């Protein structure tokens, strides 16, 4: 990686502001939110419920427009859904009337392209879904459905993968398994990943950086660098560093709600905190 590449972020969010016009009045969901994601990086976004995480992700994907501000992919402004961006939605979002093969074929049908069979077979093998192509979503467990959704998102070889609380509905064991799978896939493809989650542990395990959004209106409150080398083992989750980091992030999020009694020194450190390896 040379210096020229690092100056342009893979995905650059510049003062993103989003106002929803609802029946009960305008709702400011994002307020001048800025964030850079570098190529091959995994960035997690955490924050209190309803802080605009999903709004930010949908805006990054081009599914939503912004009220003001802009989002650039490789320097080019995103104005609509982009072929280089894949999305993994909450609760797998498979089409229940299609079997697994047909679900994975869906993006290609929309685009009028021929599916890359070898690549899809490789991905299915990677996530352990060999031989399940004829099954319908209802016949698969939640974890398997989400694996299929990941294959669907990666089938088009996107350079950025946006994941919107993908494992929120899974039990904690399956979730850990899926987290390891995401890391494996990342080691395999080096796809840039933006990951939204409610789970701080998940965010730390997966990410190079964890970005904390403030309560609505969402803006970047803090940012933490996670220094552990990959592949990471689940053992690191038991280390003191992770424990401390988890608590700091938790305090950031909880502190957002219980602001009144925040001690002076904590408020002073409201800038970016970095933990050195």
């Amino acid at each position, binding site marked *: 990686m040379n210096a020229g590449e690092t100056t342009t972020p893979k995905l650059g969010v510049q003062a993103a502001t989003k106002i929803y016009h609802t029946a009960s009045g305008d709702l400011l*969901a994002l307020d001048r939110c800025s964030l850079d994601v570098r190529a091959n990086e995994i960035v997690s976004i955490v924050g209190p419920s309803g802080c605009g995480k999903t709004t930010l992700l949908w805006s990054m994907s081009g*599914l939503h*427009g912004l009220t003001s501000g802009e989002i650039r992919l490789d320097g080019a402004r995103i104005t609509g859904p982009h072929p280089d961006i894949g999305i993994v*939605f909450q*609760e797998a979002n498979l089409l229940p*009337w299609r079997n697994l093969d047909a679900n994975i074929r869906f993006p290609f049908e929309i*685009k009028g392209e021929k599916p890359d069979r070898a690549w899809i077979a490789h991905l299915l093998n990677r996530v352990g879904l060999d031989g399940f192509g004829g099954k319908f979503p*209802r016949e698969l467990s939640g974890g398997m459905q989400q694996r299929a959704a990941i294959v669907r998102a990666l089938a088009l070889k996107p350079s950025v993968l946006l994941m919107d609380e993908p494992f929120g509905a899974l039990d904690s064991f399956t979730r850990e398994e899926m987290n390891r799978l995401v890391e494996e896939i990342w080691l395999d493809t080096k796809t840039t990943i933006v990951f939204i989650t409610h789970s701080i542990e998940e965010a730390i395990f997966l990410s190079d950086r964890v970005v904390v959004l403030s309560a609505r209106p969402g803006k970047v409150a803090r940012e933490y660098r996670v220094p552990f080398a990959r592949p990471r083992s689940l053992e690191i989750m038991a280390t003191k560093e992770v424990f401390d980091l988890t608590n700091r992030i938790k305090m950031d999020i909880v502190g957002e709600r219980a602001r009144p009694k925040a001690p002076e020194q904590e408020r002073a450190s409201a800038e970016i905190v970095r933990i050195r390896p």
Partner: protein
Amino acid sequence: MSDAIPEFSKSKSGDGQEVSLTNLSAFASGPGIKSGKEVAAIIAVAVVIIGGIELALRLFHVPLYIMPPPSSIAYALFDEFPLIAPHLGYTLVELVSGFAIGAVVGLVLAAVITQFPFAEKIVAPYILLLVTTPMLALVPLLILRFGFGYTPRIIAVALAAGPMVMINAATGFRRVDSAKIALARSYGASTLQIFWKIRAPMALPMILVGLMIGAIFGLLTAVGAEMVGGGFGLGNRLTTYSSMIQMPQFFAVVLILSTLGILIYVLFFLIGKKWASWEA
């Protein structure tokens, strides 16, 4: 920006429960495969019921014009079938062509109207009126205008089936799942692609329910229209046989009509099982 706040339905396909009577989830389980013992029991019960009716009717000397015994109905069905068969054909022509017209118009209207929520609110009362008005009431008027041929009957069938198809299909098309539409849009799907690849398949179970109800209403209306006027069709046979007090023949026609109704149900049941069982 008119974007909606991203929302995800927490319950799995909860919309399906709107119409409990016609919930397609019934298609998924179905009657199931029966064991030999169960089949034997079903036949035994049928024999006892039919035999009991036969015995009671003969024992109490119930006159033939009030209720003919099952055996004489069976004999009439067998004996008169060559005479009844052409009328079955006429009724089927009316039913199939009227239903086809009504179903196509109903489906197209449902697909179009649900795209315009404002227009939908305006036309809703008229659609309700069409659904609740018994189209049989219009048959004398239609006969006056179009004579005693197929035309008034086919129109009546189409008018009866169309609104039923439309109202159910509209319910189906209104089931928007914003996450699934977002998925399609994220791959750059056009409005047309979203319709064919997301909205239409999501609506299919409700469309099938509408088609089934429409077909059964169509049969009802076809037979009713035939009873009002015209010299052919199963409905006409009913009036003819009853006016001649030929009760075994009359009941033979009723039996044919029930069979037709059951066949309609089974047909859509099987289609639903094949194409819409994902719903459950």
